[in-house]
């Protein structure tokens, strides 16, 4: 589905991303983790076409990203960033409706099909009651749900999330991720997400990519990645690895020394 091959990004002679290669299969959920400045967000910008790599190639469905065109690409790929949508005084309904943009031609207006899709998605993510509210009156968590709804009406086959839960409380963190998970199950969606929270990453991702200083340290399951020596090398701190009492997957605990 998505192939990243020997991709590098250099800014002012500094290698932000260096020779990164990985593949994601259809329907898979892959998480990118790593410390600040590891190049995680840059990878996202490169895949979404916001920036161009200085070396290597990224292809989606066996076609290089650069040959897709912005609009065609948006039909295949939706991106959710950490700050989501601007708190712009526009109604929730209208904001979500904008997700239909890549499916409309320049001369075309949104029609009944688009309105129905928006209503359906608002119902799915539980925003129906808020649909006439203005975006700037919503909380960060609600606005992030609007951003997800907007991504949903875009009907992509690949969803990219760049630290979607950074500014949210634990309730909303789980809420956002479970909406995404349900969507994945329903539509066989492929997901690539950058996460800061290693515990959530272990719970929600099939595979993890651990990055440090622009390079991939290791790719593997949460069992393989959440290892004490590996994490302490990358994060320069020694976490305690425990088992999740309910799901039997590795989780980390931090302790102050």
């Amino acid at each position, binding site marked *: 589905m998505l192939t990243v091959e020997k991709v590098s990004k250099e800014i002012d002679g500094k290698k932000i991303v260096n020779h990164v290669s990985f593949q994601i299969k259809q329907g898979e959920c892959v998480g990118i983790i790593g410390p600040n400045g590891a190049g995680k967000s840059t990878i996202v910008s490169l895949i*979404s*076409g*916001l920036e161009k790599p200085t070396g290597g190639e990224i292809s989606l469905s066996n076609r290089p990203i650069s040959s897709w065109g*912005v*609009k*065609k*690409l*948006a*039909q295949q*790929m*939706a*991106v959710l*960033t950490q*700050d*989501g*949508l*601007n*708190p*712009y*005084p*526009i*109604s929730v*309904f*209208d*904001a979500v409706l*904008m*997700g239909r*943009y*890549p499916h*409309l031609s*320049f*001369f075309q207006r949104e029609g009944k099909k688009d309105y129905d899709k928006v209503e359906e998605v608002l119902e799915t993510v539980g925003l129906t009651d808020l649909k*006439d509210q*203005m975006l*700037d*009156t919503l909380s960060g968590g609600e606005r992030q749900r609007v*951003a997800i709804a*907007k991504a949903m009406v*875009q009907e992509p086959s690949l969803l990219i999330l760049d630290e979607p839960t950074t500014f949210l409380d634990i309730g909303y963190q789980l809420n956002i991720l479970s909406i995404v998970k349900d969507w994945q199950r329903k539509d066989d969606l492929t997901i690539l997400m950058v996460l800061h929270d290693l515990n959530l990453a272990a719970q929600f991702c099939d595979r993890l990519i651990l990055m440090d200083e622009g390079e991939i340290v290791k790719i593997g399951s949460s069992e393989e990645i959440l290892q004490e020596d590996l994490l302490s090398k990358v994060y320069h701190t020694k976490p305690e690895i425990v088992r999740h009492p309910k799901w039997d997957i590795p989780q980390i605990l931090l302790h102050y020394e």
Partner: protein
Amino acid sequence: MSKKLFQRDRMLWLWIPIFLIILLIVMSVSVSLGAASVDWKTVWKIVFSKIPYVGDWVTADWSDSAETIIWDIRFPRVVLGAIVGAALALAGAIYQGVLRNPLADPYILGVSSGASFGAALVIVFGWQLFGVGRFTLPAVAFIFGFTTLMIVYLLARVQNKVRLETIILAGVVVQAFIGACLSLILALSNEQLQTIIFWMMGSLSLTDWSYTAVVFPIVIVGAILSLFFIKDINMLGLGEEVAHHSGVSVQRTRFLLLILASVITGAAVSVSGAIGFVGLVVPHIIRLLFGSNYRMILPLSIIGGAIFLVGADAVARTILAPRELPLGIITAFLGAPFFGYLLRRAKREYF
């Protein structure tokens, strides 16, 4: 006011007719005002008599002088006022949306300074361009205005990308330079000084139908084109990255919209001078009343701008009659306090 009254675009079809009716009322009042008073019924009879086929049904029970005053003097002026007002408000709305800056108006990227400079040159040197005759001034003003925009855009371009902060700064820089050129010409000119200053303050006097015929097609085509960009302008409002991820070619769309808004501005400024405040205030008033969806803002700004400028021109003509005040003074006098009032009433951020 803190809760927007009308948000969905189906409300648009309620508000467009209301705005159009207000515009018609303001226009007919404005036409009937003046030294020779003509009642509005006669005004409309004269107007209808000029429409092919419909005119046959109207019996002419008015004097020839009334017809001349209404049809040849006042009506072209009111119609031009409506077109210029619509153009400036539309261009202002586009600039504000694209530049994501509440202070943006049609002149922020230097189109009007360039046009004023061109106009001043024409007035001082008495140029006559071959083939355009008395349209030399508007033609030169238009070309200078447009060239200024291109200079600003090229200045702001770094590695094929134009950032918003850079383009606004480039606009300020270029405006300062052209402003100096303009001041130099003003300082060196003698008897033309007043003509130039009056032109710069904006006026709809000295118009006849030929000016309308030149500007109208540009503005109407520009307006129709801009309506197709509503989806894109809305998207730019959600943030540059969000727009990109949703399929908007941000750089290209922005460039096209700035060109479009500047052509519209240039057309308006070239015939009426740099009338201030319309392009800044009208889109803001619409935004305060109807929310930030450009589905509402664009069409209602177009009609709202026409209403505002026709009204302002009526005041400019009559308040100190027979003396006529520059239109720019009236638009600021009317617009600023009303805008201030709305700002005070809006309880939260609205841009």
